[in-house]
């Protein structure tokens, strides 16, 4: 019981000393800091006044800029999209063609196919 009472007294003493030191440090704030606080306060009061008057036209300038940039970004984004979800983009189609095995086979026998083509041309001229 006594121990608890002692703790409470010690707590009170700590809090009182902390409060005293804090108040002292508040009183010792330098003139430059107080001036900055005063400027901040005046700015806040100006904003409160401006807010009550309503939105000034100058506040529309950045808002309009943001809106225009958003519209531009949406147009660019939708412009690059495929026509519908079922149509793959052109790059993907090209990529698939390149990877198809048949084409590699055709490339290996290119000389043979060229000879057949030449042969058929010759026959058609003769015929």
């Amino acid at each position, binding site marked *: 019981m006594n121990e608890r009472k002692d703790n409470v007294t*010690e*707590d009170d*003493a*700590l*809090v009182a*000393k*902390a*409060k005293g*030191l*804090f108040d*002292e*440090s*508040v009183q*010792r*704030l*330098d003139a430059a*800091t*107080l001036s*900055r*606080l005063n400027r*901040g*306060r005046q*700015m*806040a*009061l100006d*904003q*409160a*006044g401006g*807010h*009550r008057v309503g939105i000034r036209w100058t506040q529309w300038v950045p808002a309009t800029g943001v809106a225009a940039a958003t519209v531009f970004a949406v147009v660019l984004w939708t412009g690059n999209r495929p026509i519908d979800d079922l149509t793959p983009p052109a790059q993907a189609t090209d990529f698939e063609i390149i990877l198809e095995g048949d084409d590699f086979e055709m490339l290996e026998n290119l000389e043979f196919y060229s000879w057949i083509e030449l042969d058929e041309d010759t026959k058609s001229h003769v015929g």
Partner: protein
Amino acid sequence: MNALAASFAVSCIRGHDSGVSTLQLDEELNRFFADVERRALRIAEIAVRNREDALDLVQEAMIKLARKYASKSSEEWPPLFYRILQNGVRDHHRRQAVRNRVMVWFGKSDDDGVDPIAAAPDPAGRSPDQELETGEAMRKLEEAVAALPNRQREAFMMRTFEGLDVRDTATAMGVTEGSVKTHYSRAVHALREALGEHWQ
């Protein structure tokens, strides 16, 4: 014609009343900010350990209160103001943590060269003479309070330094009154442990 004149007179009086009440509100806000700003600055400074950042946070809190909550009754301003300020402090800590992570990622750890904390000027911007005046006791207290967990620090500073009651502290912290009592009690206990008997 008489009715029109009477209507004009009433509208003039109304407009005049509104002007007066706006002026009164501005004066009341000015008085509130002037009363609270110094303590708020020191509270923010102890929390973020930097006077410039603390000045910015206090100014932002004043602007937000003036713009959004000036129409509330003046009794509600202290807890609202401190709630805005504490949110600013928390946001500052979050951004600081991210910045520190990025610095570590780029290999700029504390082990590289000079210790920035040791090399930094005194956060309160005091000259050596003033620092001597402030004394070791205040510096130890600031360090101990800054080292407390966020909630305990908030509860201790708002109750002890600002003198808010439990209810207003709860509103400012966005927690229950019971939670404020717990955080405050733990904070006092932790400070007693950290500062030791000789400090008191």
